[in-house]
């Protein structure tokens, strides 16, 4: 599909546009955040503990008197980076496995896809918890865990489109002129699997951010005092009776980011690959 078509399609598609705006807002916030944020996200102000929203602190302060708005701004960097790295960790091996098992079939396909099935049999969050338990709780391991958990999803998507592609005439033609397997896969099949990969990766960003926040909430992700949204929410849980804003705003931030990726992904899917619906 032509590039121009995609852009035109995006402009017409309302969901995609709203999603893109949400994502763009948060990315801009993450980029220029430090100059904007009114306070240092790590500096405690013991006299200003658990204050509700006010002009000085628009989102209020947490249990140590740190400004929640500033922590959310810094947290946006963490969440976006978590999403990007986690998606890359699942995308690269997933795509390679999917290409190989789709192209060669049988002897590679069976063992690869069966092991993917085993991974898919577990609920994603449990598998991620399991992996973080092996690696130890930290921000980096959260990304690795969330990344590994979603490898099978990408492998499946890529494999199914390779299966359809390899029967096409143009693959036959390259084979006939003596193109090597590697050449066929890399130059002819891979570019054609890109649309579904892009759609899936966009939706995957939302899922990854959500899962990482869930791990943070369970205390398995970023450790304090890192301003990670999930961990902030978990702290807010203790003060829900008197200071609900401590939990409310980080959750809202997670929600907006995830919603953005889901809307944009949904829109992209309608434009790039109607067959995926």
């Amino acid at each position, binding site marked *: 599909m032509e590039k121009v078509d995609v852009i035109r399609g995006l402009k017409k598609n309302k969901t995609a546009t709203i999603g893109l705006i949400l994502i763009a807002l948060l990315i801009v916030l993450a980029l220029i955040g430090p100059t904007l944020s009114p306070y240092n996200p790590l500096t405690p102000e013991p006299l200003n503990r658990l204050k509700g929203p006010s002009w000085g602190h628009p989102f209020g302060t947490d249990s140590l008197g740190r400004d929640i708005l500033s922590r959310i701004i810094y947290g946006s960097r963490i969440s976006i980076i978590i999403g990007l790295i986690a998606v890359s960790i699942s995308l690269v091996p997933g795509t390679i496995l999917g290409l190989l098992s789709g192209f060669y079939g049988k002897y590679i396909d069976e063992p690869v896809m069966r092991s993917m099935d085993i991974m898919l049999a577990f609920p994603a969050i449990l598998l991620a918890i399991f992996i973080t338990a092996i690696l130890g709780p930290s921000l980096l391991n959260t990304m690795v865990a969330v990344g590994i958990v979603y490898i099978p999803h990408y492998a499946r998507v890529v494999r199914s489109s390779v299966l359809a592609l390899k029967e096409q005439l143009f693959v036959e033609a390259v084979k006939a002129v003596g193109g090597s397997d590697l050449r066929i896969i890399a130059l002819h099949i891979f570019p054609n699997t890109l649309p579904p990969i892009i759609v899936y990766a966009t939706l995957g960003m939302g899922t990854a951010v959500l899962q990482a926040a869930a791990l943070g909430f369970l205390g398995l992700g970023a450790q304090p005092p890192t301003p990670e949204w*999930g961990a902030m929410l978990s702290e807010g*849980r203790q003060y829900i009776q008197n200071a609900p804003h401590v939990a409310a705003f980080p959750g*809202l931030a997670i929600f907006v980011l995830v919603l953005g990726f889901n809307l944009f992904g949904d829109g992209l899917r309608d434009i790039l690959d109607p067959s995926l619906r």
Partner: protein
Amino acid sequence: MLRLIPGDPAHLLLGEFASPSEVAGIREKLGLDHSYFYQYFIYVRNLLSGDMGMSIRSGVPVFEEIFVRFLATVELSIAAILISSFIGIMAGVISAVRKYSLFDYVSMVLALVGISMPIFWLGLMLMYLFSVKLAILPMMGRFTMGLDYRSVTGIVILDSLFRGDLSLFFNSLKHLILPAFTLATIPMAIIARMTRSSMLEVISKDYIRTARAKGLSQGTVVFKHALKNAFLPIITVIGLNFGLLLGGAVLTETIFSWPGLGRYVVDSLLARDYPAVQGCLLLFAVIMVIVNLVVDMIYFYIDPRLRVDGKG
């Protein structure tokens, strides 16, 4: 595979200041000094006689510990499945019938919002609204402490009904509402979207037009003719969501201090309580197999065409 997790339960059990000989003693008692293969062999042998081993943390047989919690999780997930299926299917059906109406638009936006919502946040906000602000629903647990409760089935709601104890029934029902609703959010959204697209496909078919032409009422057409034919993919999605529910249970149980399996498996994992974790994983696997079996059986029940050659 579980034993790959670094960290020695013997060390965790005895604390930091244990002497090496004490550690060795505990290891011998727990059978950790044998090779992994031997440990696995023993485990499987005991399993066949219904023995899942002792929890390293509490010293209580894993089976007992898991079973009580399992029933709590079952109570929660069944409630969540019922809520999400009922509301999800209803919303999906109405959206499909009144395509592009205000209801369709609003409910599909809500469904998208539901999928993007961190349920641990939703749970906390519901808790604040209903337990703190309005103070009409309790914050945590399965029933108010101190109420007379003896377990028969292990599922509080059923027990209280059987014994005609209405106060306990309403008490436990109130405790169930928030966690169940929280857990139901995501499956509800997915089911609503699936129902809508599946119904839309069916509604344009000829036999629906025939049914309408016969002069059947809108309700009969929609529920008897259309929904029944649109049900297969919906059932599949409900079945698939069971795995999602088990995962979501970890978060929901954490928020509402629900004494279920989800939270237990996380705590066990962190304490390196191998037998407990193994038991839970085994149980999860069994649940998934049973759910898939039930889904397959429902297929046959709903769609007689699948029964003919037995191949499905």
